[in-house]
């Protein structure tokens, strides 16, 4: 057979590698800032752009979509060409893909700092960026499938199955979760409300972990581990079973983020059991990775690349075992809303994603630059400082999370909660400090790597087009007699994508359809009414400032929570919440029943300086809310959008909304004045107070009728 000559495109890989390093440093720096803000609230700088509520989404988006995202593309562009014996389909598409993705990142960073957010975790970006993401993702898929179609290798290697599943599933997740009604260019409301929004959001959130942080990286693992170790993959059979089992089961597990909430019991239980069944498929990947190193463990001792990869796989194994454990209701009752979850995700992020990326970078860069790594010693130091960083990050947070949760739950024999919420916050300081040190060490390691790689690049000479040769694929194919049945689909990329899309769609459909269609899943409560225009404006400020990053709005049915916060949350309370704001973390107390708990002036003072009302508070001050005026011009569009979403405002209400708003604002302003606070009624603080005083009120009045009758 005749050999064809062609070149691999290393240039795109190089650019993605540079972007990975750069955004990695940026994302980690943002994380470090957020971590330090919890220890030293003064670092919030009293600026809207730098408060924790905005820094945290910047951090999560930067590390997930910028650092890991570019890492995925770097690894895929490198391995795909070589596994298929062809150049990337189109250099132009590669370029569009690269610059498009970087544009998204820059837009994301700017808008998040500006406070343009949908308020849905890891999907905070507003609708114009959502559309841009969809387009760039299609470019990526187009380029990938074009490459696959032009391949010179008949069968697709397991890494590529993972790439294809990633492409299809992320597209589905992103589109379904981002359905929203635009109000203006930078503001939209989620199509879904309350329980449904929560279910869709965590189906997305959980599977962003699955299909953005896990499956593409498993694909990379399947390429770089055998390459770096020079060993055959341990078990082809295991690859097949764990691939299909993983993508099928993962999708279902989303509701384990919503245990003990107002989500229907059956959905919660599905989340639990699918999480339990997820252990083996996840570990299948770990086993296949680690056992591939059989007979190469002596190399692991020497080779820093392998060291990184081994720790990455180990961290993956730990995190994927811990995940199902956290999904058990008994454990989740303790872990949820605490820093335990934060520790858990960082074992995955720092260990699995971070270390795998570092390992790949140390392997790729010297190869593409045809030289040796500048300093293996420095890389080794990076390995140890990074490992130490992970441990120092995770251990204090595990401790702190469990400690705080147990304090929240502790009662005196007389039946009172033993600890004020603030007592538990004060106890967190040393643990938060230790965590910040861990993060700092990890970042230091990344900086050392950057230096090391820059030095390597300086001495090397870049090979932009790497020559290769392979025979063309003949049109006819004669299979072997004893071929595994799975070989068929490995020859059929389109079928592979369609089948994997069907497999991943099942879980979502079965969980969503009943929640959307069966009325009994969300019993309505007649006393729950739509937000007033002023409250709606206040709610948007709440979303804009990222309050949900520290405050939940979901009282779970535990004695410790109903004693502290009030009646547990019901599904029917959230039917007008576009988007839902249940939150996932309680750095501060739950706010679901905040309404009427404190006077208006308390909130005013508290927003100006939280420590004045709540000594030792680590909440940042929000002085600009006292100065900035409410954007009244947006009210009409907002009410209209809400009406389109099915919120039952009266006919033509948008036209009289302004009067209602003025009236309510006047009342709050007057109540503030009684307590000696002079403030005009057109300030944002007034709207926010209106919203905060509304929280949980609907059901409270209903309760009162009940209690006063007996």
């Amino acid at each position, binding site marked *: 057979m005749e050999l064809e000559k062609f070149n691999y495109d290393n240039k795109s890989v190089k650019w993605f590698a540079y972007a990975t390093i750069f955004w990695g440093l940026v994302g980690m720096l943002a994380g470090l800032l957020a971590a330090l803000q919890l220890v030293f609230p003064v670092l919030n700088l009293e600026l809207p752009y730098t408060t924790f509520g905005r820094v945290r989404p910047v951090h999560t988006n930067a590390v997930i979509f910028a650092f890991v995202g570019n890492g995925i593309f770097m690894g895929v562009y490198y*391995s795909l060409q070589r*596994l298929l*014996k062809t150049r990337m389909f189109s250099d132009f598409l590669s370029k569009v893909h690269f610059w498009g993705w970087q544009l998204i990142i820059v837009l994301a960073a700017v808008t998040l700092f500006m406070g343009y957010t949908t308020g849905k975790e890891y999907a905070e970006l507003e609708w114009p960026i959502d559309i841009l993401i969809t387009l760039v993702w299609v470019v990526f898929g187009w380029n990938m499938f074009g490459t696959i179609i032009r391949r010179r290798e008949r*069968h697709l*290697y397991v890494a590529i199955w993972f790439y294809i599943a990633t492409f299809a599933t992320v597209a589905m997740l992103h589109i379904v979760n981002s359905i929203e009604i635009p109000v203006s260019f930078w503001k939209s409301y989620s199509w879904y409300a309350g329980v449904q929004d929560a279910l869709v959001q965590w189906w997305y959130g959980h599977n962003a972990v699955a299909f953005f942080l896990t499956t593409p990286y498993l694909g990379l693992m399947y*390429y770089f581990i*055998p*390459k770096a170790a020079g060993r*055959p*993959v*341990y*078990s*082809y*059979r*295991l*690859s097949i079973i764990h691939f299909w089992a993983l993508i099928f089961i993962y999708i279902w597990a989303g509701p384990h983020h919503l245990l003990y909430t107002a989500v229907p*019991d*059956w959905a919660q*239980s*599905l989340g*639990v*059991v*699918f999480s*339990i*069944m997820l*252990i*083996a498929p996840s*570990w299948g990947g770990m*086993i296949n990775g680690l*056992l591939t190193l059989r007979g190469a463990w002596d190399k692991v001792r020497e080779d820093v690349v392998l060291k990184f990869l081994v720790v990455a796989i180990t961290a993956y194994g730990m995190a994927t075992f811990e995940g199902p454990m956290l999904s058990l209701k*008994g454990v989740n009752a303790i872990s949820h809303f605490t820093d335990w979850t934060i520790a858990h995700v960082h074992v995955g992020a720092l260990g699995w994603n971070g270390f795998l990326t570092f390992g790949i970078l140390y392997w790729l860069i010297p190869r593409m630059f045809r030289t040796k790594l500048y300093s293996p010693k420095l890389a080794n130091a990076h390995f140890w400082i990074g490992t130490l960083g992970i441990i120092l990050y995770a251990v204090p947070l595990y401790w702190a999370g469990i400690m705080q949760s147990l304090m929240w739950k502790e*009662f*005196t*024999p*007389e*039946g*009172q*909660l033993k600890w*004020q919420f603030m007592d538990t916050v004060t106890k967190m300081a040393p643990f938060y400090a230790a965590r910040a040190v861990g993060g700092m060490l990890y970042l230091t390691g990344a900086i050392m790597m950057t230096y090391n790689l820059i030095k390597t690049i300086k001495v090397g000479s870049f090979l932009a087009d790497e020559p290769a040769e392979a025979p063309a694929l003949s049109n006819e194919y004669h299979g072997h007699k004893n071929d595994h049945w799975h070989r068929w689909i490995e020859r059929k990329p389109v079928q592979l994508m369609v089948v994997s899309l069907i497999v991943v769609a099942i879980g979502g459909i079965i969980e969503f359809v009943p929640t959307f269609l069966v009325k009994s899943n969300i019993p309505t409560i007649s006393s729950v009414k739509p937000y007033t225009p002023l409250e709606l404006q206040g709610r948007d400020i709440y979303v804009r400032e990222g309050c949900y990053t520290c405050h939940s709005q979901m009282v779970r*049915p535990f004695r410790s929570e*109903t004693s*502290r916060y009030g009646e*547990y949350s019901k599904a029917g309370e959230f039917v007008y919440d576009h988007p839902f704001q249940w939150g996932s973390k309680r750095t501060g107390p739950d706010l679901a029943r905040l309404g*009427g*708990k*404190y*006077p*208006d*002036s*308390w909130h005013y*003072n508290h927003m100006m300086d939280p420590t004045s*009302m*709540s*000594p030792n508070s680590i909440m940042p001050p929000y002085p600009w809310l006292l100065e900035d005026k409410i954007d009244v011009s947006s009210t009409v569009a907002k009410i209209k959008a809400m009406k389109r979403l099915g919120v039952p405002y009266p006919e033509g209400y948008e036209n009289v909304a302004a009067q209602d708003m003025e009236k*309510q604002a006047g*009342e709050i302003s007057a109540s503030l004045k009684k307590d*000696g606070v002079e403030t005009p009624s057109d300030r944002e603080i007034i709207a926010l107070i209106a919203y905060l005083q509304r929280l949980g009120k609907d059901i409270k*009045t209903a309760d*009162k009728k009940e209690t*006063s009758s007996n």
Partner: protein
Amino acid sequence: MKSKLHKYAVWFNAFMLLPLINFAQGTQASSTSTYFSNALFLAMLAVITILLIVIVALTQALKNIGQSDYLLRRDENDKNSGTKIAATLFILFTVFSANAQTHNAKQDWIIGGLDMFTFYFMLGIIVLEGIVLTSLLLTLRKLLESKRTAPIVAKPKEKTILSVLSGAVEIENEAEIMLDHDYDGIKELDNDLPPWWKYGFYLTIVVAFIYMIHFHIAKTGDLQRVEYAKEIEKARVDVAEYMKNAASNVDETSVKMLEGADIEAGKNIFVSTCAACHGKFGEGGVGPNLTDNYWINGGSISSIFKTVKYGWPDKGMKSWKDELSPMQIAQVSSFIKTLKGTNPPNPKAQQGDLFVEEGNAPITDSLSLPNDSLQALIKDTIKTIAPGTKTK
């Protein structure tokens, strides 16, 4: 034939978990949820499960070795050890179940939150599993040893227990299972699925079915609302039991003005919890001034106690009964009463009505009723009848 037997044994072992759960349900229907919320029970269940997985995996491993001609020569008795184990476990289980009826009455024998029967039953299973495991390991070692010493054995390398567990083909022989795949130099072996992994996977699927049946089909498990109701009821009983004997039990009807150290304790509570709204010296701020003679909800010790305890949520005073004990509320109420006439700087303007201590003659205000508590009572009643009179 032989492998079939083993398969039965494996499945039998797996289903041992089923009756265990049913048992926890059946004999103690009323305390179902306490079993599954009991840490010891869960821990023991976990140990049982893990040991079971190991046993199943080892049985599998033995089966693998059994395929060598060595074992075929062994006497028949050894073949169905797995079945034997399962049978033994089953017999023991039935015996224990029978005993359950008689022991049920003696509920007061509690070990670590579990009644004695359950505890020893589970301990028994663990010990049994331990014995089975040890014997399996011994058999395995014997097998491996005899393999090593046997002159006919072709493999020069020692087969470790670990490699048996993983079901892997030795590196030296991996050419046998090397597939003809080659992707950019990456080759693929076709090792068997590690038995412990495979059976672990099966087990999680079985557990998933049992879980769904337990909670949603048989409905034998408590879902969150029932769980919550039980938790609240238990707390109510516990607290009532405790308060029966507690000296610190006071309420708004029995509270008396305290003195000395209690005032000091009240001051500490005031500084940490009340000062934010009522001012450091009680001069008022967000909340009303507590140093003057005017009170919105009554100024007697019992009225203040009541205000702190239940709050006036419509006016922004929160209820403290879940955070402060009755004694602490009495302390802080007494401290507040000592603030009267302290004239701190920046006092907030008076709010509410002039309060006159019971027994004292009215000074100026002829309208105020002589009995403060009566006055407060009337006011409270009005408020209960018409709640939420505040604007907004």
